């Protein structure tokens, strides 16, 4: 157990006792009395932890009520604090006082599980829209997902702004481009944005509920479809959580292949995003050139893994596709040609003053704000937060292959683009290293369902940032609850903050520089 967690436990211990929660694998886990849940949050905040996720589970199959879980993170240390909640009039202490990120997690718990966070300032529904009955709580075991529901009507209370010359611009959920749906509501004076309120949930598919009805192998496929552009990250995160729960260790070669696929996913998405940022400043030339590079990467994926996005290439206990010698040659050849062209394009990107004028100082997310929100991934790294799960958690093969984590502090659109530029270079370097030391051996180990009651936790660094899964096994060896936390769930909070003081026509550019997932957030 790390020193940080020990010191936190010591600080906590002055007020009450904590019990080790032995059922959880993959992270330190403790359970506390209901009245100490918020106290634990306060102590951990003081110890420098951030709130990584908060969720509730229905423990009816075990003959218990509900449980509320919060996972805190500090560097590579993850600490889960759980508290039991009675079935009648369920409620728990809100953590919003200490962690702004708790705000949406708890609204989600309230909307989908029907457990009230006490002391939460904003109990409007989140993800669940007003055409649902108020007392339909889909994540409860008593809710039957196959039954049709009556359609209700109601109003969502938007934040209002009043004053001379203040007007509102509502954008979405259907947008002009082919992008995912989300609603953005601006209060503006002239071109200046004074407030932005976002609303999501338009692509809520009931993924977390669906997990509970699937077998473990089907669940792997579902995880790969939470957010199509991060299919490898989500599948891997789910598999690692399930492997932790059942104490299965994938073979070395499988871990290397997983890491190679993760880096390839990162490269493809970063290439597409850098181009898309250029497109939003009407610099279409770079957009098309970067699209060509992304396409090259996707075609190599298709040739090696049989799927352009490498869907369903990770399985419980390992991977489904091995890399042949020919595949290695193909990858090395692609790395050479893409990198060469990439560097040439980056020079054009760098040497264009009109581009620079648009990207610098636009959409600034200050390091303080990023820390307060608990932002993760490249969004955090471009706002001065030195974090990367690959390095901090040292999971194989990153334990034996050091990586350089680029960190910028300006937090503007340029920083978010430039961190990605550096990451593309680093990912290609890593891929070459992995290929150089790719161990021989099997690509998958046998996997058995976990023991009833056991649960597994995992955190991996997807291309957007930290992806967290927590999966618990029910009495019959089935999935009792699977919690999904994409990087977007916390990073979406940051766009509302980054847009303050910007002008309306710069919003699409800012949004593109974050490029968070709607599907991964809405689930």
């Amino acid at each position, binding site marked *: 157990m790390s020193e940080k967690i020990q010191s936190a436990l010591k600080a906590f211990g002055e007020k009450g006792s904590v019990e080790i929660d032995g059922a959880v694998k993959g992270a330190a886990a403790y359970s506390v009395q209901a009245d100490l849940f918020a106290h634990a949050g306060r102590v951990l905040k003081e110890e420098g932890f951030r709130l990584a996720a908060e969720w509730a589970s229905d423990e009816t199959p075990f003959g218990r009520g509900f449980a509320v879980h919060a996972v805190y993170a500090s560097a590579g240390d993850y600490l889960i604090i759980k508290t039991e909640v009675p079935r009648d009039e369920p409620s728990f202490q809100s953590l919003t006082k200490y962690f702004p990120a708790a705000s949406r997690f708890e609204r989600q718990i309230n909307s989908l599980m029907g457990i009230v966070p006490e002391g939460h300032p904003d109990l409007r529904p989140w993800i669940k829209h007003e055409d649902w009955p108020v007392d339909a709580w889909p994540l409860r075991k008593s809710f039957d997902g196959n039954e049709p529901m009556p359609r209700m009507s109601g109003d969502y209370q938007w934040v209002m702004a009043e004053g001379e010359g203040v007007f509102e*611009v509502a954008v979405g959920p259907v947008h002009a481009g082919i992008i995912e749906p989300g609603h953005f509501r601006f209060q503006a004076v002239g071109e200046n944005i004074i407030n932005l309120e976002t609303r999501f949930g338009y692509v809520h598919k009931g993924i977390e509920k669906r997990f509970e009805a699937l077998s473990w192998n089907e669940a792997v496929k579902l995880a790969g479809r939470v957010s199509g552009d991060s299919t490898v990250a989500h599948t891997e995160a789910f598999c690692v959580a399930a492997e932790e729960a059942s104490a299965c260790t994938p073979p070395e070669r499988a871990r290397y292949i997983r890491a190679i696929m993760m880096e390839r996913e990162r490269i493809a998405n970063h290439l597409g995003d850098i181009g898309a940022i250029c497109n939003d400043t009407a*610099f279409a030339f770079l957009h098309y050139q970067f699209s060509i590079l992304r396409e090259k990467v996707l075609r190599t994926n298709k040739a090696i893994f049989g799927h352009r996005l490498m869907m369903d290439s990770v399985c419980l206990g390992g991977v489904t596709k091995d890399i042949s010698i020919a595949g290695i040659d193909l990858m090395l050849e692609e790395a050479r040609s893409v990198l060469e062209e990439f560097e040439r394009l980056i020079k054009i990107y760098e040497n264009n003053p009109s581009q620079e004028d648009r990207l610098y100082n636009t959409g600034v997310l200050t390091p303080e704000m990023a820390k307060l929100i608990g932002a993760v991934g490249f969004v955090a790294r471009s706002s001065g937060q030195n974090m990367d799960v690959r390095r901090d958690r040292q999971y194989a093969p990153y334990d034996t292959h050091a990586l350089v984590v680029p960190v910028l502090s300006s937090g503007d659109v340029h920083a978010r683009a430039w961190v990605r530029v550096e990451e593309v270079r680093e990912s290609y370097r890593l891929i070459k290293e992995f290929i150089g030391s790719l161990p021989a051996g099997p690509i998958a180990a046998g996997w058995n369902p976990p023991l009833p009651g056991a649960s597994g936790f995992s955190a991996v660094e997807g291309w957007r940032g930290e992806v967290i899964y927590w999966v618990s096994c029910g009495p019959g060896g089935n999935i009792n609850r699977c919690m999904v936390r994409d990087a977007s769930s916390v990073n979406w909070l940051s766009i509302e903050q980054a847009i303050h003081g910007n002008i309306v026509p710069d919003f699409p550019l800012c949004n593109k520089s974050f490029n968070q997932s709607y599907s991964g957030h809405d689930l």
Partner: protein
Amino acid sequence: MIRQYYPILIESLQVILVLLGGPLLVGWVRMLKCWTQGRRSAGLLQPMRDVTKLFVKETVLAENASWIFRSTPYIVFGATLMAGAIIPVVSADLPLAATADIIALVAIFALARFFTALAGLDTGTAFGGMGTSREMMVSSLAEPAVLMSVFTVSLVSHSTSLSHMVHELTTVSFVLRPSLAFALLAFILIAIAETGRIPVDNPSTHLELTMIHEAMLLEYSGRHLALIEWASMMKLFLFASLGIALFLPWGIAGIDDPGMLPVALVALAVKLALTGVFIVLVETGLSKMRIFRVAEFLGMAFLLASLGMLSYFILE
């Protein structure tokens, strides 16, 4: 016989040229753009196909749209065509050019813009209002600059009548005039702003929040949209040919010189093709500027135009 009908013939030729030239020029620009970006183009005729397609599509009207919204497409199209009838594109001997001078021309464009702006406000959507406010900001800065720029040419040619100006400029022997050089630079900057090209506006964006001109047109569909799109293509053609007529008039057929017409047509095609190349070079090399930079950009145009006028009095 032919002498008698010559004015009518030349005027009809001119109107047909403007009607077809607009979509062709836009098609040419898009073609070049595709090539510079490494894409395959949809061909020279694609803008024409787009317009024809819009004409057969259903026209959807917002519930609270008033007569302003419904009549604006016709006013805009009519005004633009009217402007097309008075700018000497291939021949200085243009009968209608005598009815309106360059100040009236600027006013005709302003009329079209005024109604587009009203239509943008008419449906009461946030985007229309935003687009209108931006368009008005741009035009309030561009119009003085465009007048300053063309007045410099008027000073040089001692007239505000377009026909007379072109005739004057083509007949005098070629002299390097600093005033015209300044006026040309100013005119290029203004034309970019007026026709909504990069770096001022992005004609091909789908991002409503960033649009200037297009934001006012979001509610339009079917034949209304077809007319407006066609008009804005003609506007690009007209600004290009106005620039050609004022600053590079060589090749335009003079008064009583119908034999020059074929040459004039070829010269026009070459000059427009080169204008297209110029537009694409600018648009490939530049990002769209932040909206408040447009003020500086047009301020620069006004400054250049003023310098042109000053240098006429000081140097010439």
